[in-house]
């Protein structure tokens, strides 16, 4: 009964989404504010019904209602409570319901925080979000209903959630990722709405910017969590695989990063406007492409959901309609967009343009590598290929290196015009000091001269020095230096933090890649091995029992130069419900190095295959990601996004005094 209620709520939500698409649009067409303003309550209604629906699914999970097929496939009576909740988005149908909830949430947020918008603009934006929601709801209702029953014969016990997903990372990773993916629908809707009016002014960029930054920050969090989760949960210490599904989240992030920067230029200087609109369209299109790649099963990936051509076809058609429709609109309207300002080759605008070109080229390279197997198969009579990580490293790395150099230089550049000579001269001291510092650090701590490590880390430190100097120069000539620190805008601090995060991640990536050590060995209890400066000894093997699994647990003692470091307890778990085996690594975490131990398989004589990693600076990759996201969130607190709202208050006050 509850499940049917959930299904019914979804159908009602579809009705409301159709209304949200049509009614405000008619209102705009006939200039009737009453109809336009209905968009607010329709968005609220839409959110409420989708929320009821997901609560119903949660209820089915918590009450172990295995007559619901989705619950029977992804839960089990002995599954711990928190995983019963996260199992809602543990597989295709439920995760798409979460996707729709997030979509309805963004729509509601736009309708609530839209005091700055004109009634007309608000109606247009919400109508575009409405039509997208219609597409998503039709998809779930027609092809992926999570409320399908298994009646009349239903199982007494569920087949359990995939053990890989029984983990904290998977509780938070998908919601964050979807906040990002779906969040790009908002700048997309702003772009389409503005194109439909034919007037593209800087106000549009100011409206889109906070939304874009927040969506992008969420996506950053999602990707960072995903990488961290893959590192400790997939069991083998890798943190990025250039896997098709990872790329599917990375491409919208790259385009989103370009969008975040070009919106800055569009808002501040009124330049690159049509380009920015195009990026907004592509950022969301890449999100949809990601959904297609993940949910259609056309590509080989460890993340793919079960293969289902029908679903893939639906998303593909939806994708074609969205991209085709918006690009057609763009083609007709974009010629009317005029850029008002001009800029010189080494101005800040030009730096942002370089950033954009490099990011777009980088995402094109990733896209090519990701979907090339599809083309190859189509052109070569079904011959299957895969594109290996070396391709991505070879193509992607040089592009981002150029990007990082531009990043180090850019804080010095000014709007409109910057003297190229001054720009280059100002970089000599930061670059040389970065080079000296990094070379010394590498020689002292790593006791080797790795040219690549020195080169890349120098760029990272150069970026940090440039940022620090820029902040110093901003307050240098002020009398009250500390107070003037507080007077800098929040979006400036957001930029500092975001770029700082990138530098931290760069250091993490290059140090991990070049200085990691790993060994796969056969260990009997009592055996030991040495890796880097660490000594690992397998004391004994234990049998332990979890709530819904049995496990072999190793007790491994780690020492460094005779001093005790840690006891690590990696496990090999067996989940009877899903008849699945899972590797649970154990990690000794540190700011400068991780020690990672995972169990392979049992061998004869009580021996086990054991993998041991020494991973220097690996945490920095994710710390950097968190700084970047924090920077994105910080920009939203900028005062200027609230300017109009407060001006309204002043007006009211004035009117009040006049009366």
């Amino acid at each position, binding site marked *: 009964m509850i499940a049917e209620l959930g299904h019914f709520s979804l159908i009602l939500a579809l009705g409301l989404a159709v209304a949200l698409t049509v009614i405000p649009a008619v209102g705009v067409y006939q200039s009737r504010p009453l109809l336009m303003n209905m968009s607010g309550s329709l968005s609220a209604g839409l959110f409420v019904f989708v929320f009821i629906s997901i609560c119903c699914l949660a209820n089915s999970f918590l009450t172990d209602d295995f007559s619901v097929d989705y619950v029977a496939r992804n839960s089990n009576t002995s599954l711990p409570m928190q995983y019963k909740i996260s199992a809602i988005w543990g597989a295709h149908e439920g995760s798409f319901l979460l996707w729709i909830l997030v979509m309805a949430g963004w729509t509601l947020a736009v309708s609530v925080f839209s005091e700055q918008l004109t009634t007309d603009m608000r109606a247009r934006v919400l109508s575009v979000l409405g039509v997208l929601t219609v597409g998503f709801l039709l998809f779930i209702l027609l092809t992926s209903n999570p409320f399908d029953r298994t009646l009349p014969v239903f199982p007494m016990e569920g087949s359990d959630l995939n053990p890989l997903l029984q983990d904290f990372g998977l509780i938070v990773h998908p919601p964050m990722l979807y906040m990002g993916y779906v969040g790009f629908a908002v700048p997309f809707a702003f772009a389409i709405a503005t194109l439909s009016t034919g007037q593209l002014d800087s106000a549009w960029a100011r409206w889109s910017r906070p939304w874009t930054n927040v969506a992008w920050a969420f996506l950053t969090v999602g990707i960072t969590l995903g990488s961290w989760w893959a590192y400790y949960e997939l069991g083998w210490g890798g943190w990025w695989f250039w896997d098709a599904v990872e790329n599917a989240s990375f491409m919208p992030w790259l385009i989103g990063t370009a969008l975040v920067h070009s919106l800055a230029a569009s808002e501040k200087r009124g330049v690159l406007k049509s380009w920015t609109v195009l990026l907004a369209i592509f950022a969301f299109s890449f999100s949809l492409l990601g959904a297609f790649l993940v949910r259609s099963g056309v590509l080989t990936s460890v993340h793919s959901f*079960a293969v289902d051509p029908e679903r893939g076809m639906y998303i593909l058609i939806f994708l074609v309609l969205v991209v085709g429709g918006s690009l057609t609109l763009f083609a007709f309207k974009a010629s009317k967009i005029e850029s008002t300002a001009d800029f010189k080759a080494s101005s800040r605008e030009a730096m942002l343009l370089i950033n954009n070109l490099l990011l777009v080229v980088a995402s094109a390279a990733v896209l090519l590598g990701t979907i090339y197997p599809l083309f190859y198969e189509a052109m070569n009579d079904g011959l299957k290929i895969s594109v290996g990580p070396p391709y991505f490293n070879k193509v992607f790395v040089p592009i981002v290196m150029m990007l990082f150099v531009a990043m180090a230089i850019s804080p010095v550049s000014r709007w409109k015009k910057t003297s190229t000579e001054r720009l280059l001269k100002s970089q000599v001291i930061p670059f040389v000091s970065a080079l000296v510092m990094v070379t010394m650090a590498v020689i002292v701590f790593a006791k080797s001269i790795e040219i690549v490590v020195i080169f890349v880390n120098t760029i990272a430190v150069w970026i940090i020095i440039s940022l620090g100097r820029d902040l110093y120069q901003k307050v240098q000539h002020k009398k009250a230096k500390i107070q003037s620190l507080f007077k800098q805008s929040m979006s400036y601090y957001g930029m500092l933090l975001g770029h700082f995060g990138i530098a931290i991640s760069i250091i993490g990536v290059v140090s991990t890649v070049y200085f990691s050590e790993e060994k*796969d060995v056969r260990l009997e209890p009592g055996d030991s091995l040495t890796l880097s400066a660490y000594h690992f000894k397998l004391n004994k093997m234990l049998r332990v029992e979890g709530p819904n699994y049995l496990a072999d647990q190793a007790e491994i003692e780690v020492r460094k130069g005779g001093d005790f470091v840690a006891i690590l307890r990696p496990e090999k778990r067996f989940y009877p419900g899903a008849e699945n085996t899972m590797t649970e690594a154990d990690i000794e975490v540190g700011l400068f190095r991780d020690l990672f131990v995972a169990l392979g398989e049992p061998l004869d004589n009580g021996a086990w295959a054991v993998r041991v990693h020494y991973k220097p600076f690996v945490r920095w990759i994710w710390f950097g990601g968190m700084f970047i996201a924090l920077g994105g969130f910080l920009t939203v607190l900028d005062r200027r996004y609230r300017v109009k709202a407060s001006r309204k208050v002043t007006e009211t006050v004035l009117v009040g005094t006049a009366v």
Partner: protein
Amino acid sequence: MKFGKMKTHRRNRLMLVAFLLIGSGTAVSLTLTALNENINLFYEPQQIVDGEAPIGDLIRAGGMVKAGSVMRSTTDLKVNFVITDMKSAEVNMMYDGILPDLFREGQGVIARGRLDPYGVFVAEEVLAKHDENYMAPELKKMIDAKKAEA
């Protein structure tokens, strides 16, 4: 005066176009080279037996692990096993390392590695089926084809 300005403006634009053309041309050709060097073709056991697969190149091979074929070393992590297409073709595989959790006799695997001159596939990486519902498209296609034949 005005004419002179136009000229500089035009020259700048021409330089920009030339720069873009050269830049994008180099980028595209480098990318395509990298792509062609790093694609891994997939071969079924039958194709390897027939000698269609190149020797010494990085390729991928997939099939079912033959029951009773897994032999481990007693001193290190070296392991030998046979993959089959469930008909006649069989390929010997060699691997040194930890096999994935889902590696089992009778289950599908995909391996990345090189074929040595004796027809033994030396794997650098072995991937097993990810979950009960998911199967790599290559394997699924092969199995479906066999089912259709039977």
